[in-house]
């Protein structure tokens, strides 16, 4: 290859597989790395945690290592009960991610199916969408409060509440995309060549909508983590001594003026997870959406 022959990378791009195009975007690549590290830390929390996340000690409110009085024994310092914040971050991230994944997964699948069905079968449309409207009228936090009142505090009621809260938004997005897809000529062409409903639904409708739904879900993932953290912040999500990022931030609130790291570190962690999820969601859309491919 001589210098005189510049290689046009962009021209090559469409032919590359989607994941190669994804990692060529530096922001997305960084987000992917960060998220991978976070997920690995969460999965292997019991192996990598330097201390028992539930054991309190008399060393309360120890500053993190970057502060003057910090020590490597507790790299992120300790909280108001003398528990190691780094270990709690590992465990807390685990629960936070689990709450986010389960609720977005459940709500996303259910919501998308409802939305696509409404567009695919116009007869069902008013029924499905009115149901969705009813669900939309319950704010996620209120729903969480109600479920916790019935089942008691814990991660499961929060997951159910967040899943239910994800359904209507997801259904609306899926429907709006599906309605425009249904008007495309290739759908009619598919019908004309005698494709079955199932094939039409999966191969034509779903495949043309999935990228937009995925981007919505990945953006929603960030929001759900935030709402989940908010519910835990209010004392509804995780139950002590469990660690959850929102709850850790709430517990640190009392020390904000004196030992800000107790609240700031979990909050930064929430911020990083949400930011990485959003950046990655955006990048996924760029590489997956057929309409953006040209």
């Amino acid at each position: 290859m001589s210098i005189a022959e510049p290689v046009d990378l962009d021209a090559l791009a469409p032919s590359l597989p989607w994941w190669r195009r994804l990692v060529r975007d530096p922001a997305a690549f960084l987000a992917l790395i960060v998220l991978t590290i976070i997920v690995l830390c969460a999965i292997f929390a019991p192996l990598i945690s330097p201390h028992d996340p539930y054991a309190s000690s008399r060393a309360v409110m120890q500053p993190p290592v970057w502060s003057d009085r910090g020590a490597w024994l507790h790299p992120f310092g300790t909280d108001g009960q003398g528990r190691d914040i780094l270990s709690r971050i590992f465990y807390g991230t685990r629960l936070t991610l689990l709450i986010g994944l389960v609720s977005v997964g459940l709500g996303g699948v259910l919501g998308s199916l409802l939305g696509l069905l409404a567009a695919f079968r116009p007869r069902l449309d008013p029924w499905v969408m009115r149901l969705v409207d009813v669900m939309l009228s319950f704010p996620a936090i209120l729903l969480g409060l109600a479920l916790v009142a019935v089942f008691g505090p814990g991660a499961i009621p929060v997951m159910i509440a967040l899943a239910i809260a994800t359904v209507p938004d997801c259904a609306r997005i899926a429907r709006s995309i599906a309605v425009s897809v249904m008007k495309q000529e290739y759908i009619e062409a598919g019908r004309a060549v005698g494709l079955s409903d199932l094939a039409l639904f999966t191969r034509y409708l779903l495949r043309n909508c999935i990228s937009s739904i995925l981007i919505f879900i990945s953006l929603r993932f960030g929001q759900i983590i935030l709402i989940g953290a908010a519910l835990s912040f209010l004392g509804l999500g995780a139950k002590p001594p469990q660690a959850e990022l929102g709850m850790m931030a709430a517990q640190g609130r009392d020390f904000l003026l004196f030992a800000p790291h107790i609240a700031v570190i979990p909050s930064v962690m929430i911020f990083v997870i949400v930011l990485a999820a959003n950046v990655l969601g955006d990048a996924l859309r760029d590489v997956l959406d057929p309409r953006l491919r040209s």
Partner: protein
Amino acid sequence: MKRLTLTTAVALALPAFAQAAEITVVREVDSNNYDPHRAVARAAAEVLFMLGDTLVSLNPDMQTIEPGVAESWDVSDDGLTYTFNLRDDVYFCDGKQMTAEDVAYSITRWVDPETKSPVAWRAGDVESVTAVNEFTVEYKLSEPFSELLYQLTQSFGTIIDSANVEALGEDFGVSGFNGSGPFCWVEWTPRDKMIIERHEAYSWGAPFHTNTGPASMEKITWQVVPEENTRTVALLTGQSEITQYVPDIALAQLRDAPTVEVVRSDLAFWTYFMGFKIDKATVSDPAVRQAINLAVDQTAMAEDLFFGEVEPAYSYVSQGALDWNTALDDTLLTYDPDEANRILDEAGWELGSDGVRSKDGVRLEPIAYVFAGSTWGKISESVQAYLREIGVAMDIQAFDATVAWGRLATQEFDMFGMSFPYVSSGDALNLYFRSENMPTPNRMNWNDAQTDELLQAGKTALDDATRAESYGAVLEIVHDAAVWLPLYHEPMVVAQSADLETVVPHNIYGAGLYKGLDLKFKE
């Protein structure tokens, strides 16, 4: 015209030089109303003491009864009849003179079943309260009540104006209140602020006040600021002049601040504890309750969670309280986790592979109901961590105050967190350990005939020695049975602006500023 402008300018500038005698007190919560017979919150008491007067007053030493609107009183030998001689110079805020009729009306309304006062028992078993003449009241009991004078110092015994109660109906203590205290009701915005103004005619303050009236402050605003860091900042920046609601963590900083002074009194009787519902399988074994008492390090909790600002509690009432049984001082259960484990082993509670003990199919996983919020959050998590060390997995369930009281009246929990103010041992014991008070406030289901008998003996005692002996015996019984896990005694800490004369915190019902008569800007 020029002169007029100048005069106006001077007039406008003047208030800036002379310090306006107005202060803002920040506090954590509001009361649901200010009817002395229906409101039991500390938030109500601290305003009611300023708005109204009681027959007798409690000295800041928390032991001595001093005059209030009654300048003297006699107790009959059988302890059944109290005769109060009222001052003849007491006036309500609307200018009406207070007479024996008002006192009789107030007490009668307090104990009237129709009032549904949750604190009616505090007035004793009232047979009748009558006005003998304009300034003499006869208070008749059907059985002696050794605590009566102490109870009458509380805000529940505030003398109210019958015309005011009847005029306002359900809105009494909500839209207005005509009292005879050093301050008068101006305006209340629930959950925001309560504004009260000086009662100019007031001159009948109790003798232990440096100022018996009228108050030095012209206006006091009780401002609700739920967030504790915000209250600290309000004090530091001068938006509030005084408060008793400062977080323990901020006290060291406030003590160093040149604009703030911190005053502390250890005569405060406000105790935090966790109780056991003793008929629940998890905690019915006294060995378990004893072990839990031994497993928790109250001293470390007081130092680490509350920065040494509270007193670790090993006794159910403060050891400085009236009628505390000093014989128990050496028998109190203190931190000894090895002994706790030994007791549980000996009692047959075997440690499982998951670190939780069990016996006969019962796992040591007591459910603990606590109030949601940072205080009980940190207390309960700390206790939970200590109990983990002895194989007890306490399950914390926190409820918002709006539902917590209802939940705490059920039989669904094994342990519960609670804190309470009291004036004496008898006050605390009669409230929590009488079998007739099940299921609430006797949430332990402590049902013991001997306790009931001794409490009755203490309550109806005619002399101090009998009363002290009876209550002392009850204290011994309940401490032996380890019915509670005492946690800490909260002292009264008031943080005030250095511009104010140093206050003497009062501890009655946790209302640190009491009547507000001693609040005064430095000259």
